C-alpha cells in the first residue's frame, strides 16, 4: 500500500498537496483527513488531494473526503482533486462531490 504523504508546493501561494495512497479506505482516509486538517490549520487555503496513485475509493473514503471539503469550506479554503482515474472521477461526479471541488486531470 502506498503511504499517504504531503508536500508543500509553494508557501507564497498557500497551496499544499496531499498524496492519497493506492486505496482510499478508512485507514488511509483518516490519515489524509488528518493531513489536510493540519494544512488548513497551518493556514494553507488551497489543498490539492493527489489521486494519481489511487486505484479505488470506497464509501468510507468518500465520507472522509466530504469531511475535508466541509472543513475547508468552513474557513473559505479550496479543495482540488488532482488526477483521479476515470472510475473515481465518475464516482465523485455521481455522488455530487464535483460540485464542491475542482477536478484537475
Amino acid at each position, binding site marked *: 500500500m502506498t503511504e499517504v504523504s504531503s508536500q508543500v508546493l509553494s508557501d507564497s501561494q498557500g497551496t499544499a498537496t496531499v498524496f492519497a495512497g493506492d486505496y482510499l479506505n*478508512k485507514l488511509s482516509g483518516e490519515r489524509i483527513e488528518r493531513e489536510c486538517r493540519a494544512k488548513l490549520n497551518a493556514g494553507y487555503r488551497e489543498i490539492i488531494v493527489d489521486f494519481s496513485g489511487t486505484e479505488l475509493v*470506497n*464509501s*468510507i*473514503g*468518500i*465520507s*472522509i473526503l*466530504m*469531511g475535508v*471539503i*466541509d472543513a475547508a469550506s468552513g474557513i473559505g479554503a479550496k479543495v482540488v482533486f488532482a488526477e483521479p482515474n476515470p*472510475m473515481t472521477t*465518475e*464516482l465523485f461526479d*455521481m*455522488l*455530487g*462531490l464535483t*460540485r*464542491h471541488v475542482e477536478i484537475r486531470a
Partner: protein
Amino acid sequence: MKLQEMRSTNFSRFAAERNKLVHTFGALAEIGQEVSNKHNFQETVRTSLHLVLGSLGIMRGGVVRYTRFEHELNMVSARGLGDDFPFGMSLCYEDERQFLANGLYPIECDQARVLPFFQVYDRSLERAKIELFVPLVVRDELLGGIFLGEKASGEQYTSHDKEIICAMGRHIGVAISQRNLMAELERRADENRRLYDDLKMTYKDTVKAFAAAIDRKDKYTEGHSVRVGKYSEAIARELGWGEEEIEGAAFAGYLHDIGKITVERKIINAPYRINAKESTELNKHPGAGYEILQPIRHPYAGVPLAAKYHHERLDGRGYPDGLYDREIPYIAKVVNLADAFDAMTSDRPYRRRRSAQEVFEDLQRNSGKQFAPELVTALLRGVIRELSGESKDKTFRKMLGREYMESEGLMPMVRTALNELAPTTPLTFVAHK
C-alpha cells in the same frame, strides 16, 4: 434524436445507475461485516456512519443512542454537525410514541415540526442543515436514531435513497441492540456479583458468630473453632488450593464442632477425664453437626461432611463411622489434622499443652495412621515458611504464640520432621476391615 444517440444516452444512464448500485451494495456489505465483527461499539458506529454518508454522498450526519430511563438521545458518533450540536437530546412521551409508530423509516425534519422534538431542537437541526431523522426502531423498540444532512449533489433524497438508508439503519440498530444487551448482561452480572458478595459476607458473619457461640459453650477450649479454621486455611494454602477452596476449608474448620451445641454443657466443661457414657454422648457431636449443617446451602462444598467426619482416622479407628483413608472426605482430613494440632498445642483444664518436640513427633508418628501424610507435610511446610520469613503470613505465630514459635531448636526440629516424612511415608495407609 437519432436512434443511435438515444441508445448511447440510455447506455450511459444505465452504466451510471449500475455503478451507483455497485457502490451502494459495497457499502451495505461493509456495514453488515462491521456490525458482525466484534469491534468496540463506538468504532462500529463511527464506521457505519461513514458508510451511510459515503454511500449516498451525504455531507454530514450523526448517530444517537436512546437511553430509555433518561428519555434521551445521546450522540455516539457525528460528522460535520459542529460543536454546537447538542450531545444529548430529550424526548417526550409523544415523540417516542410517534417514532415507534413511524418505525425505521426516514422522517423529513421540515415536515415533522408538529412533534415536540422537532420544535425543541429546531434551531440546532437547522444550523446543522439536517434534512432527515431516521428513528432506529428494531423489534418495536426505539434504540436510537440517525441524523442526516444534505446530499453533496444538492438533490433531494429519493425513495431509493431512503430504502438504502433503512437497510443500513437496520444494521446500526442491531449494533445498538447488541450493545444494550451486553450492557444489560454486564449490569446483571455486576448485580449478581454484588448479591453473591453480600450473601457470602452474611454467611461469613453467621459462621463466625456460630464459631464464637460454640467456643463460648466450651470454656476450656475458647477460640478452638477459630484456630482450627485458621490452621485448615493454612494447610489448604500450602496444598495450592484456589482462594474459594481455601476459604471453604477455613469455614469447614470454624464449623467443625457445631454439633457440640447439642451436647450437655457439664460434659463439655468437665474438669476431668470424662467416663465412657459421657464419652459416647460427646462423640455424637460430629453427627449432630452434620444434621445441623446439611440442610444449609453453603457456598463451599464439604462443610457438613467436614463436621461429620473430622474425627475419622486413616486407619479406620476413628468415629462416628470408622471410615478408612479413601472413604474419608478430603476436607474432613484437613480439619482432622487442624483439630488435632490445636488440641495438642492448646492448654486444657487437665493438662498443659505439649512441647513443640512432642507435637512434631506425634505428627510424624501418626502420619499415615491418623493423618494424611501430604497434609502433615503441608502443615510443616507452612510452619517452616513462616519461621524462615519466606511467608508473610503470621497464622502460626498468632495462633501458637511468640514463645512457642521462638522456642529453641524449633526450626531444625520441623525441618527434620519434614525431611523424614516427605520422601518415605506412603501417601495412603492401606487397611482392611
